[in-house]
């Protein structure tokens, strides 16, 4: 739910709408991609507008916003296909730091992230990349300088834009979390494009040495904190999926009312009307899931919360992809061009699905609870 005053939320809404209008015309995506390649982007603006502080507790120097407040941003980011690493840095890594770090160091760790001075991304996924900690095989050992990390981290989204990685590992068989400088020795990064024309990297840590102070936390709090940060991210992303779904539906309805074939507007064909109706039904589901997620974090029962979030991740990704596929289909030939934003929305949907457990993996998790 929202933890902010109504007027503050409206200010965020206005600011993000203006930001997209001013900075994110879809037609300039080539230029933007080039900028992202150099990791420029608009991160400074994000910091100035206070967005990087939004979801963190006031005691930790944040604005104390809730998921509903973050969703205001994410819904707009979905609509505008904003490629800055907000969910990677602020939600995945930021919330993991907030949830895992002891109170004594929390603010100090979060400050450079919130000011925009340092970008941190979570490097948690391995061969199987669920939110759970059980799949982590990266090993940390103590050494004279502090710790030595060995292992590989897969599909670390936006790792190329990060100054530091928040690396999960096992230390004495206990979950542990480390902050590792991106430029560390013995750390190799292989970067590649993702299906949503962003970047991800695979990291290979071959005995990366970090000082003792790099250890953020250890113990069960790390396993729970990292899982919760990812669940929190999923809850926020429901709004991004909603932003995409809503815009696709609006664009598709407009297209059906414009495009003529067989001597009439194609909106007059019942077969196409029904496909549009299927999009609307999916959009309603997704809007409802985003709404459900907006106050899921306030639930007392964390088991039930996890069940709801994973159900949402699975359903919003299936419904979202179907909706986007219909949007492409109803746009016909132009729907499968790179020039129109429609195809890019579909591509973003696939990337969101793939993030830390696709819909099949989420369903499997749910099935195993039965």
């Amino acid at each position, binding site marked *: 739910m929202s933890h902010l005053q109504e007027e503050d939320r409206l200010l965020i809404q206005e600011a993000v709408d203006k930001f997209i209008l001013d900075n994110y015309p879809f037609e300039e995506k080539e230029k933007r991609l080039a900028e992202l390649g150099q990791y420029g982007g608009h991160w400074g603006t994000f910091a100035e507008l206070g967005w990087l502080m939004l979801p963190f507790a006031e005691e930790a120097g944040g604005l104390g916003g809730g998921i509903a407040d973050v969703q205001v941003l994410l819904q707009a980011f979905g609509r505008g296909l904003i490629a800055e690493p907000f969910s990677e840095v602020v939600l995945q890594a930021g919330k993991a730091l907030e949830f895992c770090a002891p109170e004594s160091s929390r603010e100090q760790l979060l400050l450079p992230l919130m000011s925009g001075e340092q970008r941190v991304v979570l490097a948690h*996924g391995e*061969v*199987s*990349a669920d939110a759970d900690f059980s799949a982590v095989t990266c090993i940390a050992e103590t050494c004279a300088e502090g710790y030595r990390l060995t292992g590989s981290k*897969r*599909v670390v*989204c936006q790792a190329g834009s990060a100054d530091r990685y928040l690396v999960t590992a096992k230390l004495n068989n206990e979950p542990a979390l480390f902050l590792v400088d991106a430029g560390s020795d013995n750390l190799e990064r*292989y970067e*590649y*494009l*993702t*299906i*949503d*024309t962003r970047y*991800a990297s*695979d990291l290979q840590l071959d005995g990366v040495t970090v000082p003792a102070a790099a250890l953020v936390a250890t113990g069960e709090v790390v396993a729970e904190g990292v899982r919760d940060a990812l669940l929190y991210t999923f809850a926020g992303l429901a709004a991004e999926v909603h932003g995409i779904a809503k815009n696709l539906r609006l664009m598709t309805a407009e297209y059906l009312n414009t495009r*003529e*074939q*067989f*001597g009439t507007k194609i909106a007059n*064909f019942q*077969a*196409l009307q029904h*496909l549009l109706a299927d999009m609307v039904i999916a959009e309603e589901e997704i809007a409802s899931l985003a709404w459900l997620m907006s106050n899921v974090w306030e639930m007392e029962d964390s088991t039930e919360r996890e069940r709801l979030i994973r159900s949402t991740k699975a359903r919003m990704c299936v419904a979202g992809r179907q909706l986007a*596929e219909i949007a*492409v*289909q109803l746009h*016909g*030939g132009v*729907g*499968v*061009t*790179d*020039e129109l934003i429609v*195809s890019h929305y*579909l*591509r973003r949907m*696939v*990337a969101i*699905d*793939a*993030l*830390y457990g*696709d819909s*099949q*993996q989420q369903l*499997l998790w749910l*099935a*195993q609870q039965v």
Partner: protein
Amino acid sequence: MMRLSAEEQAFQKQVRAFIRDNLPADIKYKVDNNLLLKKDDHVRWQKILGDKGWFAGGWPEQYGGAGWSETQQYIFDQENALAGAPFIIPYGVNMVGPVLYNFGTEEQKEKYLPGILSNDTWWTQGYSEPNAGSDLASLKCSARREGDEYVINGTKMWTTQAQYADMMHILVRTDDGGKKQEGITFLVLDMNTPGITISPIITIDGVYHTNQTFFDEVRVPVANRVGDEGDGWKIARFLLEHERTAIADTGAKSRGVAAIKQRLQVMEQERPGQPQNLLFKMRLAEIESELTAVIALEQRLIADWQAGKPVGYGASALKVRATELQQSLSVLIADLNGPYKAAYEVDYVDQGKVVDDPTPSQLASGGGYLYLYGRCASIYGGSNQVQRNIIAKMVLG
């Protein structure tokens, strides 16, 4: 089930052995990894087939073909796809070739058929337009008669491989009055004719396959007209009916299923007993059963066709089911990549260089390409909604 005669079985063995022994490894690599094939890959393979006399096997012998039956053609297509050979680019050999030997003059046959056979002339098609997609008959690109020439003005969409093409076969409007189907004429034209501009279209997969081509006062000799003025629609129907069965491309789907089986066996060895593996096996089983039905439908249509029976709405049913199956298959292949489903190295897909030890993100990129490009399948060749309209109209009258 299609029963093969002893001769057909021998033919099948011969085809299988030939492709195994003659398919270049770098081309097979691209097909096996679901990477983009370039003109050079197609030409190289098609010339190898040409040297064997199997490139235009379905053409009558008098025009340089092998006079294959429908069944032989089917056997060849299946073996070609199963072995990981490139699909045959249809614009020359399967589209304009049969049009020329069925509707063309002797001069036209002599002039164009040899280049198609030798793969030295590369063809593209000019049918769809910005406002004439699935409603092809409303095309507007015009050709006005001036003496011995037609002067073409207008534009064509989805002129696939036009950037490589020497020739285009094109539907143009020569008459604005009367029924819209009646004013359409079929021409062939040299892509070097002045007034032609090719504008690339990058598709959803981030790759350059296709174009919009613009015509500004493009002068084509009347001798390049195939059939009479106004015959274009009849010829287009002849040609697209061929496309509708070819679109099923079941051999490639069988190859996809076999590849997934192999992949799942590896997954089972690496991480035995994972429940995820069983889920994938169930999804594969579902696809296999659907593919069984699609292949049966395809073979039944071919048998009917060979017996001279009308195939009716069967061709539309095949197009719908085959493309839906192609799409669910591509989703499964992508999903097998787990978190790497997000990876899409478009340069690797586009350039298709053989890599000895591909990274997981490279290995996954072919799945992304299949999924993205697969979205076109339910749109091209008459969208699946239009196919359903055709079926309903045939049944309801």
